[in-house]
């Protein structure tokens, strides 16, 4: 796609060209791999101002680092030439950026009205009991985390849950237990 004409006054600062940060987290140094950096530059071409790319860049960062740690916020703020407080303000506003590590299988059960009417609490209860965690918690082995979420636009196929990026719809308790079993055994879904 042809890049938009960019407003030079809003261009990122020189930090975007050379990454000097090298802070470490559990998941390694906080700096984009060359492939991710190339993606970052491609993302910038979609917007007339680089700041508008922030949300998309945060998705990229979450994919690369697993979660948006303070070190990641710092890195993104330097990379994009945005105040650290700005980046943090955006990260904290949106519920899908993880501000702490989540399980490898991140399970989000919709408990809004349409799902509630079709047994969402049974689904939530079954997951919670089986994994022995409540909403907002992660299992000790780091394999699973659980969340209650609001309507995911799947009300016609309720009850449902989101497993990482994937929707699982029209669920029964048996199906959910079967799904958890497969995940525990590391089987393909």
């Amino acid at each position: 796609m042809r890049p938009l004409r960019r407003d030079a006054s809003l261009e990122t600062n020189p930090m975007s060209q050379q990454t000097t940060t090298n802070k470490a987290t559990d998941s390694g140094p906080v700096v984009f791999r060359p492939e991710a950096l190339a993606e970052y530059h491609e993302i910038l071409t979609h917007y007339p101002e680089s700041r508008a790319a922030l949300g998309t860049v945060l998705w990229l960062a979450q994919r690369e680092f697993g979660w948006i740690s303070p070190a990641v916020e710092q890195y993104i703020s330097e990379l994009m030439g945005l105040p650290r407080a700005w980046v943090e303000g955006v990260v904290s506003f949106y519920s899908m950026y993880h501000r702490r590590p989540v399980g490898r299988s991140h399970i989000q059960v919709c408990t809004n009205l349409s799902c509630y009417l079709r047994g969402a609490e049974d689904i939530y209860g079954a997951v919670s009991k089986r994994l022995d965690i409540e909403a907002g918690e992660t299992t000790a082995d780091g394999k699973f985390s659980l969340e209650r979420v609001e309507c995911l636009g799947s009300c016609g196929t309720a009850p449902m849950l989101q497993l990482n990026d994937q929707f699982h719809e029209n669920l029964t308790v048996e199906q959910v237990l079967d799904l958890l079993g497969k995940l525990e055994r590391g089987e393909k879904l």
Partner: protein
Amino acid sequence: MQEKVLLRYRDLSVDLKMIDNYIESGGYSTARRVFSEIAPEKVIEMVKESNLRGRGGAGFPTGLKWTFLAKNTGKPNYLLCNADESEPGTFKDRAIIENDPHQLLEGMMISAHAIGCTNAYIYIRGEFAYGAEVLKRAIAEACEKGFLGNDVFGLGRELNIHVHRGAGAYICGEETGLIESLEGKRAHPRIKPPFPAVYGVFGCPTIVNNVETLACVKHIVERGPAWFKAIGPETGPGPKLYGVSGHVRNPGVFELPMGTSLREIIEVHAGGMREGRQLKAVIPGGSSVPILRADEIDIAMDFDSVAKAGSMLGSAGIIVMDDSTDMVAALRRVSHFYHHESCGQCTPCREGTGWLEKIVTALDEGRGTEEDLRKLDNVAKGMLGTTICVLSDAAAMPVRSFLDKFGEEFRAAVRRSAGAAAA
């Protein structure tokens, strides 16, 4: 069976996601004709003539909205497709996005031509990861064919469509919240005026339209405004997507003429109530609109008729509840949602949604008092018409209507609490 237009994918055996199938079934011929032969003003005229009203919730006349665009500003105009679809009970846009993405792109191309836009965005809610990928691939295919990019249909015209993925916040569906979010900010709705058509994204004239609205534009231009106007009531016609969820046998999205009766939608298309159950209540247009009792469903599901019946067509997300439903518990879900999603800028909304949830939770947990019931109504009243956006109203309206239509259940909850306290 009536011909499906928006949900044509259901009648065809081919996968419309693949551009070659879409083209083979007539796709992109209208966009090509529009770009090469039809003046922008003429397209706007056709959309006005069709009486298309926005499918995102408010039902604002689309053609009229387009004419509000500020002229001769020297700035680019933007078209934003609202694919945030987060109103509880709503899941219709997803049907288009995931199954027939080119239909949306073609509608956007025609709309972009009409309003003189060269860069358009689809703002899709973060949870629709799959939908975002479907759209991205569709855009890449269209670019490859030369339908998008810097030489649209070889006519030397430029049009790019970008997918922007949200990250989980209902308020991004409100058009100025969406604009702020697209600019890389917290999605705090803006004070209006100025309206987006004058000062929108990046400070430029901007049109925000819903997915289904933009899909309708394609068909209006393809088949003519008269065809569109002949479907349903003339003051807001067209094919319409109704999403039915909750206690019905056959939930799902149904494409029907605008103004189909709510009873017919529930009883015929959605298969009626589950075995041995009776209808109790229906929310006709997403969780923020006033609820209807079982004896109020003989209404036409169009903007004006539902308004006359004291509710709103909204997003046409129909949530059906049978006689097993505890209305206090149901309202608790709804009130929790609005509290969770208030962006916090306005005091009546930030505080009010908190109070509503707190009181309804107390009632649901058997700790409610008479005083709570009065307070609930008062707090809700104070939240109407006083804030930057209408999320505050959207939180208050269900509360007032649940109390109005099912007050006895709330009073019974109070009596149970009093009884439990005395024992």
